[in-house]
């Protein structure tokens, strides 16, 4: 499974503006609403917040992988956002989050949802990949870095 199958270029956001958890989730979901992938943005944010309540998806090292399941979604979709300032996300290591991989799956997506999550987690274990994502300038540059890493495995 490759990340770029569900993360096209236009869903890569180099400069997230939101400064809190709910705000940043809304900002990421907004991309999917604009694309008509998600109908009800507020509901989607709620689904993500409900999931966060079970335990933060801020896995440390400045990374969060917020995720959730939505009934009226046709396919697995991801959004990547970078917050240069960092967002407080109740991370496991307590550090602010800079890199967000949002993942939303249809309710009945069986194992694809978890396989995608595993894929993202695996890629993000690579320290130099994380560094590159933090250093990169434009959307295009971020896309290239992700594409290169995605092909490695």
């Amino acid at each position, binding site marked *: 499974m490759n990340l770029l199958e569900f993360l096209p270029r236009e869903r890569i956001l180099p400069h997230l503006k939101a400064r809190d958890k709910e705000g940043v989730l809304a900002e990421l979901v907004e991309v999917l609403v604009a694309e008509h992938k998600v109908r009800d943005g507020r509901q989607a944010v709620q689904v993500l917040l409900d*999931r966060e309540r*079970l*335990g933060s998806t801020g896995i440390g090292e400045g990374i969060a*992988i917020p995720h959730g399941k939505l009934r009226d979604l046709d396919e697995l979709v991801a959004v990547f956002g970078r917050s240069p300032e960092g967002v407080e996300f109740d991370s496991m290591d307590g550090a602010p989050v800079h890199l967000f991989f949002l993942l939303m799956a249809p309710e009945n997506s069986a*194992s694809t949802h*978890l*396989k995608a999550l595993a*894929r993202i987690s695996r890629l993000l274990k690579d320290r130099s990949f994380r560094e590159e994502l933090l250093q990169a300038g434009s959307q295009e540059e971020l896309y290239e870095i992700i594409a290169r890493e995605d092909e490695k495995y």
Partner: protein
Amino acid sequence: MRVIVVGAGEVGFHTAERLALEGHDVVVVEHSRQALRSVEERLNVMALEGNGAEARVLEEAGIGECGLFIAVTDVDEVNLVACLLAKEYGVPVKIARVRSVAYTGRGAVLNAEKLGIELLINPLEAVAQDLINIASHAAAVEVAEFAGGRILFVGYPITPDSPVAGLTLAEIGELRTMYPFVVAAITRHGRTLIPRGDDRVEPDDHVFLVMRQKDLAAVRYMFGLEKRQTRRIFVFGGGSVGQRVAEHFEHKRAEVTLVEPDRDRCEELARRANRATVINADITEVDVLLSEGIGKADVVVATTPNEEKNILASLLAKRHGARRALCVVDRPAYVGLVPSLGIDACISPRLSTASAILKYVRRGGVLNVATVEENQAEVLELRIPEAFAWARRPLREIPFPDGAIVGAALRGDRAFIPTGDTTLDPGDRIVVFALPEAVVAVEDFFGTS
């Protein structure tokens, strides 16, 4: 090791017999001359007449050298006082059978920890608790608590549409920062295996996890079970076990229907019930059960003393639409049969009580034990001894016995899921899953045998 067993009733007799066979130096203390005579005649132990809650009698029994003290008379208070005395004499492991839920129920004012007794066993409570655990963990086939409830061992059956069906263990491992647990074992086609990274979870597997209690909600989410709750429950049989189960779910605001064939007992249950519906009927009267909505039951728990009827009623309930059925069955032959019939889980009072005591006893350093799927494998809670040869070495470097896996650990008050970098330090409590052939190796490894 010197073992003192106070009380020569059925459990005491059986326990003394087994321990003597294993070569322990067993002393049975019993006040009834008749019971004592049968011990003298049939067992190779020392029999001592007297009250086990008296210091003088215990001294006569050699309490000074006693390594294990088991109090299983019919009287709770005698058992507790006997164990407290044993504690004063410095006996390292004390076990008391208590029937009153006052000591073993949730929120008990005096519990095992406060009394300083290693294990309190309430046979009916143990059965009721097992039933409650499995019934409330919707979709779980097996639940056991360790480290005072902070660590759980849970078995889930995998359906074809399960989110984890098709995932490799390596993929599950990638998710451990968000979903921290260890897949201790998978049972597949009646065989139990400890999976490796390239093994895959398949439909119809039973997957056994060790996790922290606080991660349960997240894990249930991952397994796609977050919306399945036990809302409607039918309890067959209003004896003490059935009543206990019904009361538990009443408190949880579930819709409880209690079915009891005896009219007088029904009236008493109805008087004591808060919200539960009490039905006076035979548990196999399908028409009555259907009109009470058995077809919409999330779970049916059959607890009558008649085990054949429990099995039959469970099957009928499932046939008519009940989602899950658990049943109390005591005969070993039935215990093995029940899963193959399509009943989701069965609990055996005799097995759970007798083996709980014996297993605890057989291993000095083992704090708690649960058995899995008809005793095929065991989950052990152990304390790392001071002299542990591999202390403070990362887990990946430790030649851990084959057929066993460390599921979780407790250091002080903090429960955690170990990784290859984790060290095991003296005083840590760890939960280990072991296939039957590996149990002895695990005990030897940790010096607890």
